[in-house]
């Protein structure tokens, strides 16, 4: 047993999309330990989403080992048992909200976990309330605004009471108000998380470590000297080495 148990531990992971010989993930190592909150800032196309999907067992790596909650993940069955304990918020909320109403959607996870209908409903209502969404609980999901959809998708993930969160660009397309709400929610949660974002300010407020990705590998804190520039720079607003 480790002193600080790791929730996610990837070693030497390589992944290429079928029909492509480019390794999107190339001999990548990553650990997310209990209580850690890590931000991941990297340019588009550097494989961040692919990394999250690999962690969840949605994409099978060509090589390397994945350990989730201390257990090695070898077969799809292993992932099935653990996946529900790690909440992945998808880049596009429309992918995640497929049930007719907000309440149905938030209850979908708990119902799959084997909760009774009564329990699932209560858990869903509780989560909806916590995220301040009680006013729209009976709304039809496809009619919600972008910000509401994002928060409902987060509620749907949180209703499963996950041990860790993986958030894929949670602030994309949100206005300041919703961003503020999101920051408050994330800071009130006492679970490990890893957050992909392009927004340095946001990442800075909700995480205490910032990683980056380059050539299919993770660059950790020590390697990344993250800063923002006032001057014009080839790498723009992305963190980078000097």
């Amino acid at each position, binding site marked *: 047993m480790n002193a600080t148990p790791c929730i996610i531990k990837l070693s030497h992971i390589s992944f290429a999309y079928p029909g492509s010989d480019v390794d999107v993930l190339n001999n990548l190592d990553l650990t997310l330990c209990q209580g850690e909150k890590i931000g991941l800032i990297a340019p588009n196309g550097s494989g961040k989403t692919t990394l999250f999907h690999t962690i969840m067992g949605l994409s099978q790596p060509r090589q390397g080992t994945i350990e989730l909650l201390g257990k090695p993940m070898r077969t799809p069955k292993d992932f099935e048992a653990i996946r529900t304990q790690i909440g992945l918020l998808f880049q596009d909320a429309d*992918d995640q909200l497929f049930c007719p109403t907000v309440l149905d959607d938030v209850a979908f996870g708990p119902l799959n976990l084997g909760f009774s209908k009564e329990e699932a409903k209560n858990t869903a209502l509780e989560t909806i309330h916590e995220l301040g969404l009680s006013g729209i609980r009976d709304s039809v999901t496809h009619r919600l605004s972008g910000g509401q959809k994002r928060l409902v998708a987060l509620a749907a993930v949180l209703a499963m009471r996950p041990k860790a969160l993986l958030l894929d660009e949670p602030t994309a397309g949100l206005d300041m108000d919703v961003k503020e709400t999101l920051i408050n929610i994330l800071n009130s949660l006492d679970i490990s998380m890893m957050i992909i974002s392009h927004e340095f300010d946001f990442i800075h407020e909700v995480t205490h470590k910032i990683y980056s990705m380059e050539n299919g590998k993770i660059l950790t804190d020590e390697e990344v000297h993250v800063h923002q520039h006032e001057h014009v720079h080839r790498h723009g607003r992305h963190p980078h080495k000097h």
Partner: protein
Amino acid sequence: MLDESLAYKVSAVHRLEPRARIIASMFLSFGTALSHRFDILGLYFIVSAALVFTASLSWHEVWGRLKPLLWFVVMIWIFLPLSFEGEIIWQYGWVKVSFAGVRLCMEITLKSVTILLVFTALVATMTVATIGYGLHRLNFPEKLTFLLLMTYRYIYVIRDEYHRLLRAARFRGFVPKTNLHSYRTFAYLAGMLFVRASFRAQRVYRAMVCRGFRGRFRTLDVYRLNGIDYLFIILCTLCAGILLLFEYYRIFL
């Protein structure tokens, strides 16, 4: 696109449980379809009109739903009486109108209008989500129910994607005309839409799997059947059953 405005009203019909409304509309429309006597069809028509009235729909809304059907009815009135054998009731040159043809036209018209009214009053007054829920609880095949719900959910997303693609094409100076270039562009758009839709489907499925989906849908019980729902089902079923007996045993009032 899909108009659900009728579902957001308040009436006695809207308070009925989805299952009760689906079952009642099934019995009433089967009963109507199986009848041939005009007195019985007339009774069904009265029942359907009463349901529309109870659902507090305006004539304008009902007319909107009936319009597409009327084109079909007009076509039938043009072709059936001319092509039907039997006693001729009107003749002009080679144009012969048969009594049997006219009678069949009237029967089809009355039946289709009645069935449409029943569905407008009982089913169109539910959201697609509610219908899906009702079908699910009635043990309608799960795959079909969720096909309905998912189609409804994502048709908007796909429409938006289509508009985005079209806008992108327009921004680059694309003006639809009747030429090969336009057709090819639309073919590309359609192809792109298909590719995107299938990637979308993959992501949606992944999102479901991430939330513990293993092939079985579970839903919350949002609605409960109460006494009035049972009464409504029994009334509608009895009505259809009795009228069917009248028809079958040639009982006249």
